[in-house]
């Protein structure tokens, strides 16, 4: 036993040599705490930022807007830059959690991000005071052409018993309800209890057919031929097709959600100056292009889009769809009461 412990200690010590610590000199300009979606950035761009600015990036990841919010709100984790979606930004603005941006420090953001995306942002960020768009996209169905017969064009296929146990649904409250609300023809921002109850019943009826409620795992499972149909963000379409050519992405005809994920700075941040430097760096055209190549989510950075060499992708209908062709709606924050209602109904579905 003594020997075992001695050996253990040796291992711990050698591991410490391996990992090496002590990099205070490398970063003279402090730190920036970034809180972003999982695998939502090219790690190389972070290294470039650190090298160019001398600011150390402390990077953390979340998987849904809902898990991000309590952490920022409670103030237990003081981040400098966060990347929530539209409706969550609105909620943060409403609850006074965000700091106003100083646009003088964001020349790249002003020059490179397409005007239409700022206009779209007005819905949740009036006056464009708080947010800089980073990625956008739609939510649709990813399906395996070998397992699904015929073209897919409607959410209703997710209720088709032929595909029992081969359907993957999103494990986040808004994205799950969106599918039901859209197929019922209601607004994706419905707060009407009767409509929501109806959506709930529809989702409960669907539950026996669902293989699993997952978030980003849809990607891996679809690539691995584990499921035939999955609800997924459009940004994953290019990546998954690259890995498994049998997969196809479609925006259902009943309409869907169009979303924007934007950089914001929480009020309780520790270093706003570094935060703005980070945001502006990410808006540089070459950096935005690197990120687009890596994560394949549609970029609102029009300057970067011009730099895309592959013409197919540059004009891809999946990466840059013509929004006027589809029935689309952006989520908005529905208030605390509606939030509670959604959560309760969600729990009812899951516990059923």
């Amino acid at each position, binding site marked *: 036993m003594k020997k075992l412990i001695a050996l253990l200690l040796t291992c711990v010590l050698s*591991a*410490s040599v391996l*990992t090496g610590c002590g990099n205070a000199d490398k970063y003279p300009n402090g730190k920036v705490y970034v809180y972003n979606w999982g695998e939502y950035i090219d790690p190389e761009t972070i290294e470039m930022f650190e090298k160019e600015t001398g600011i150390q990036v402390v990077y953390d990841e979340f998987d849904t807007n809902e898990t991000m919010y309590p952490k920022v709100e409670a103030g*237990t*984790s*003081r981040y400098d830059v966060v990347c929530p979606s539209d409706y969550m930004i609105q909620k943060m603005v409403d609850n006074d959690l965000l700091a106003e941006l100083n646009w003088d420090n964001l020349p790249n953001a002003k020059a490179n991000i397409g005007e239409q995306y700022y206009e779209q942002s007005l819905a949740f960020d009036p006056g464009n005071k708080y947010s800089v768009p980073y990625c956008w996209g739609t939510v649709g169905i990813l399906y395996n052409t070998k397992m699904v017969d015929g073209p897919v064009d409607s959410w209703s296929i997710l209720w088709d018993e032929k595909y029992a146990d081969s359907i993957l649904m999103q494990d986040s409250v808004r994205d799950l309800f969106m599918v039901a609300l859209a197929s019922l023809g209601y607004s994706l921002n419905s707060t009407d209890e009767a409509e929501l109850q109806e959506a709930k019943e529809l989702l409960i009826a669907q539950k026996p057919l669902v293989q699993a409620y997952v978030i980003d*795992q849809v990607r*891996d499972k679809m690539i691995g031929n584990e499921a035939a149909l999955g609800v997924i963000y459009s940004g994953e379409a290019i990546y998954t097709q690259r890995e498994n050519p049998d997969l196809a992405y479609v925006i259902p005809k009943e309409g869907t959600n169009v979303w924007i994920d934007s950089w914001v700075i929480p009020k309780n941040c520790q270093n706003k100056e570094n935060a703005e430097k980070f945001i502006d760096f990410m808006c540089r055209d070459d950096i935005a292009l690197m990120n687009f190549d890596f994560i394949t989510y549609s970029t609102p950075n029009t300057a970067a889009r011009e730099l895309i060499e592959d013409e197919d992708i540059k004009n891809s209908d999946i990466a840059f769809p013509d929004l006027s062709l589809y029935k689309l709606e952006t989520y908005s924050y529905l208030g605390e009461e509606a939030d509670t209602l959604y959560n309760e109904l969600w729990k009812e579905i899951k516990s059923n």
Partner: protein
Amino acid sequence: MRNAAKKIYITLIFIFLYAPIVTLIVLSFNASKSRAKWGGFTLKWYQNLFKNQDILNALWNTLLIAFLSAFIATVIGTIACIAIQSMKKRNRTILIGITNIPMLNAEIVTGISLMLLFIVLGMNFGFLTILLAHITFNIPYVILSIMPRMKQLNPSTYEAALDLGASHMKAFFSVTFPDILPGILSGFLMAFTMSLDDFIITHFTKGPGIDTLSTKIYTEVKKGIKPEMYALSTLIFLTVLVLLILVNRSPKEKDV
């Protein structure tokens, strides 16, 4: 016949316990990034592992927290054992009851309760909060392994040492300590293992920019685990396995 049945039974249980571990080891050599596909044999994940600063940092945090929390818990636990031993029976029962709470309570409740405490104290979530939480749930394991040894002690040897002019400190270190040392060591080892494998409590007490292997894996689970992680686990597992074999082949130590 009966022996054969026993052997089969043990083998089956071992297959059950080690099947996932073998799976992970196999996956660490899988050239395909996806869990679901076998893409041929490769060692590239092992090479990438040593370039992946995030995973190495998480490993370092995990080991450091496991070591520090086990060490501090062992010190506090040993002192507590001496104190508990000298208490009246009723007080002892109460204190042992309290001691056992973090071990018997649900991890999720322990995690949440510590999170609430740290928030009220206005602490910055990070290394320190994780460390404090780990010490807290490690202490009962230490006390549990020391107490039985403590009970077997003959109090008169300690008193004899005092009579012979030794100070309390000296008497403790030369008489009591050697006798309870095996308990202390196994307590330390147990605490180290528990800390290493903990996810839930770390999940609730961690702050920005700090990850242990567990929390790192939990975030990766959602997006698909990076094969480097399999490589790292394989290395850790093999290291411990080799250590075990070494220890067991060496002449039997009496203290175990």
